[in-house]
């Protein structure tokens, strides 16, 4: 029974963290077919911004965290204007922007490595050392924080997308760019906003991730890859599907890690995803039409 509880606890934590980054990625892809390989670097950047504002600028944590998120949003806007803005109308946008963002991502990560050095930092924004017991399974308060943050943000994004005018504009653009444009939606403004929002989500997920482990310049790579696996599993561009898929992948990974061995978690989910894709090439919740040209 303890096994089971342990799988649920760590699986839900993983799922919550994956969902934060996967939903952002999925939103960006859904809006304008941009597969943002720099998402992981922005995660890392967001986590480092907390350090910058807290350690170097001497802010309190309650001030440093919102400032870090604002900086991440600005990073997203900058990312739009240095890459996607120029490429939107050119051919092969989806592959070209993917390669371009790989370049940007590696440049950003090595820049961070140069600026902060390779040694890990401890994330100041963490409650990892405090925990309580459920049936002899320790649950740290940090996990509660992660679950709560993920839940609040997911509900927030959901409300934003379904209830606000701007959210409707985002969904309209995702469904049909030309029609949205004809209805007076300023699609480029939507793209910028979506990328900024996704970057904020990425930064939150980076902060959460570094609060469970430690802060390193190259820490964004692995969670990015998992977020990608989550969104392919869900079907690219399907935001709600990404949420379910994130929890599914988190639980599966935790189960394999607990029952088989820690290093088999990633290969196991990868093989699972490949099998699913052979069965349903457009993903679990995907429609065939998602891959637009």
């Amino acid at each position, binding site marked *: 029974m303890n096994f089971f509880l342990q799988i649920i606890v760590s699986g839900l934590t993983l799922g919550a963290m994956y969902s934060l980054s996967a939903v952002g990625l999925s939103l960006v892809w859904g809006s304008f077919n941009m597969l943002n390989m720099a998402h992981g670097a922005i995660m890392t950047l967001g986590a480092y911004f907390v350090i910058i504002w807290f350690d170097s600028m001497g802010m309190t944590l309650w001030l440093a965290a919102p400032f870090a998120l604002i900086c991440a949003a600005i990073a997203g806007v900058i990312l739009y204007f240095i890459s996607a803005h120029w490429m939107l109308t050119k051919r092969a946008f989806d592959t070209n922007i993917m390669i371009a963002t790989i*370049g940007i991502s*590696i440049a950003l990560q090595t820049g961070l490595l140069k600026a902060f050095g390779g040694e890990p930092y401890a994330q100041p924004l963490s409650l990892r050392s405090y925990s309580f017991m459920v049936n002899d399974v320790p649950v740290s308060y940090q996990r509660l924080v992660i679950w709560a943050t993920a839940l609040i943000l997911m509900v927030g994004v959901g409300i934003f997308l379904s209830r606000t005018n701007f959210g409707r504009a985002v969904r309209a653009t995702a469904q049909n760019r030309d029609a949205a444009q004809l209805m007076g939606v300023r699609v480029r403004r939507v793209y910028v906003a979506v990328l900024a929002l996704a970057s904020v989500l990425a930064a939150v997920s980076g902060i959460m991730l570094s609060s469970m482990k430690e802060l390193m310049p190259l820490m964004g790579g692995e969670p990015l890859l998992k977020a990608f*696996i989550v969104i392919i599993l869900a079907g690219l561009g399907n935001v709600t599907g990404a949420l379910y898929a994130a929890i599914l992948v988190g639980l599966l990974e935790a189960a394999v890690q607990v029952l088989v061995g820690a290093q088999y978690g*990633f290969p196991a989910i990868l093989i699972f995803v490949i099998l699913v894709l052979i069965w349903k090439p457009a993903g679990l919740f995907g429609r065939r039409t998602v891959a637009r040209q």
Partner: protein
Amino acid sequence: MSRRDLIILVVLIAFAIAFPYMGVPRYLLTSALVMFCFATVVTQWNLVFGVAGIFSLGQLAIFAIGAYTTAVMGRYLDMNVWYTFPIAGLAGVGLSLLVGLATLRMKGVYVALLTIAIAQMMFVLIQTDTACSELNRIINPQTCISFTGGSQGLGDFGSFGWREVLGGRDAVRGDYYTMLGLLVVGVLVSFFIINSRIGLGFKALRDNPELAASRGISQFKYQLIVFGVSAFLTAVAGSFYAAKFKAVGPGILGFDLLLLLIAMLVVGGLGRAWGPLLGALVITIFREGVDNIMTEGLQWRDVIFGGIVAAVMIFMPEGLTGTLDRLWNYILIKLGFAKARSSTVTAVAQDKKAND
């Protein structure tokens, strides 16, 4: 292969053969032969990515399979590395066909994500492989080395053996010509495929998939052929790489090598026969330059490369060869040597029109 291409190729090969006798320092020969190795990989990757239009990022996984096959066979079976090359090639073909089958029904970025994930999975599996292997106990009972060597990698599996044949001073020339031979084969294969029925078939499949399919062009067949052929040489390049450096580690699956190869590919120009070669040459020269100018340039190098890749994709997605091609045709037309009929320029223009 047009006459222009043939002449350029012969001149290049002649230059490359003469290069070691031009009194260049030895470290330049080493950089040149590393460039040949990567250029081979990039020419083959170009067949999959540029010509067939399959956005696969798994080329390094095939490269690594080749390198590790040579290392494992040389180390545990005590095979001469020369005999391991065909086996490494076949191992690469096997992996590539599996990947090809798994990704056959997918499109564009799905393939990219899945192939990058497969490469990453190999990296993680090798990196976390720490169980002491009995095979290594036989070789040296004192040590605990895992089957793949884990994060430290494997060594002690032999080399090309030029040191014994040519002597220590000239061994690097042996390595140089070996790599050059591989590259020449790679370039010839690449030219052959691009100009053969297969290349034309992919062109047809890209321009009008329905018509091409109704004329009996099977994407399934052609895709598997390209995956197989390109994987063989890529894996052999991997095992040559292992044999040259006498060691192999999981680092060859890392992001910096991926970035380097992508930079060669896109700077040269995707889908063009000369693209990978030009890209490999330019990037290598650039890399040497950066390393010489900045003594602590190693880390800034990736920042610069990342920036270059992004800038090329954003402002010059056809790469250097595409731009040069355009310039060449423009000059020809201006001088009155040719009418505005050149295949690439008009094809690209039409493509653009169709997409806008």
